[in-house]
């Protein structure tokens, strides 16, 4: 087939809402875009284990501790689903990890903020996972098969994450005055960083146009952000807390809330490495990887030896 014929088959698939599979022909830029997006997503899951892992040893009850352990384990699993999806595009696991460890690849800016109190664990589950789910529900229908299938699995598991976060917020919000203040403080600190998770406004988002054209994304950053605000405000009201945005107001005409944009200058600073915890997160990832080197080496040596014994016999 001529190149243009391959392109026609590819475009035809997108037009018919069919999935693109690893062995199908795809334009180089589509492949590159996917590798960047899926690996960023995978790295976010893995780095996302760190702010929550921070509270495992200090969870206020055994129940809270097992729940948090299960959640952090899930995030690790989600990272692995996504890494294998990215690998189907022709990049190796070592290369993917190396890109994370050297700072060449990015991960979600949200995980560069610290989890200062137990209420932050509630806010992360409720808001951060809530925002992630909004994005991931859309990605279940993304055009690349392995990515879409990983998302289906992830979405099934994520809903427990958001619910456990909201449960923590409920306990604190209906607890003592100090507990409620702690919940409000967490909401104040996590609201805008969560809003940034959907990415820059559509007009300034460099990757959005291709992502929509190739059906990698089906909703724009601003559409998802609006959806998140609409969904979350009633939950804030239920808790008796206040969204830290004086401009937040129901707009009957658009059947949604008007809201203030997050500080995009701060967003740029955080993704360029200058957030409150960037250095700490990267150092923790590198240390974990380096400390685990002997395990990989031992497993490799063991497998090699067994193979030799097997082949000799």
């Amino acid at each position, binding site marked *: 087939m001529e190149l243009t014929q391959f392109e026609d088959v590819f475009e035809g698939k997108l037009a018919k809402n069919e999935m693109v599979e690893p062995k199908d022909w795809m334009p180089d830029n589509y492949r590159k875009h996917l590798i960047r997006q899926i690996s960023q997503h995978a790295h976010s899951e893995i780095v996302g284990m760190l702010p929550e892992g921070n509270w495992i040893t200090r969870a206020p009850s055994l129940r809270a501790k097992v729940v948090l352990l299960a959640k952090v384990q899930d995030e690790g699993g989600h990272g692995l689903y996504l890494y*294998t999806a990215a690998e189907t595009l022709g990049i190796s696991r070592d290369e993917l990890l190396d890109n994370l460890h050297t700072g060449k690849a990015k991960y979600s800016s949200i995980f560069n903020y610290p989890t200062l109190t137990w209420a932050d664990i509630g806010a992360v589950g409720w808001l951060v996972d809530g925002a992630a789910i909004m994005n991931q529900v859309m990605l279940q229908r993304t055009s690349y098969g392995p990515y879409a*299938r990983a998302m289906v699995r992830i979405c099934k598991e994520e809903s427990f994450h958001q619910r456990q976060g909201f449960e923590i917020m409920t306990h604190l919000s209906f607890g003592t005055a100090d507990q409620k203040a702690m919940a409000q403080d967490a909401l104040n600190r996590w609201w805008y960083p969560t809003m940034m998770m959907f990415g820059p406004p559509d007009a300034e988002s460099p990757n959005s146009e291709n992502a929509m054209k190739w059906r990698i994304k089906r909703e724009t950053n601003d559409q998802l952000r609006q959806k998140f605000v609409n969904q979350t405000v009633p939950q804030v009201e239920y808790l008796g807390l206040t969204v830290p945005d004086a401009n937040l107001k129901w707009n009957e005409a658009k059947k949604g809330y008007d809201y203030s944009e997050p500080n995009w200058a701060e967003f740029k600073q955080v993704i360029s490495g200058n957030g409150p915890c960037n250095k700490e997160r990267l150092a923790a990832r590198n240390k974990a990887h380096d400390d685990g080197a002997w395990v990989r080496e031992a*497993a490799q040596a063991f497998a090699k030896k067994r193979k030799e014994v097997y082949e000799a016999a």
Partner: protein
Amino acid sequence: MSDNQGPVWEIFLQKKAGQPFVHCGSLHAFDKEMALQNARDLYTRRGEGVSIWAVPSNAIVASSPEDIGPFFEPSNDKVYRHPTFYQIPDAIGHM
């Protein structure tokens, strides 16, 4: 860059006894035991399966997407392989 993640394995899960094994994803492991244990930890954290197959990725033979026409073509014109091709008298009812 050294490859120290081990080979890729494809994982198939059987949801319940008697049901077919369905592909659920892949993972890295150095040997069979590790492949099974990793598959259990990665793909059955919520009772998703009662049995696991782990198959080295490079052992799988797959048809090519370009084959879609010629490779499967022989079955396209054989409508008589389907039960709806045959007329059964109404009096007989369900068959």
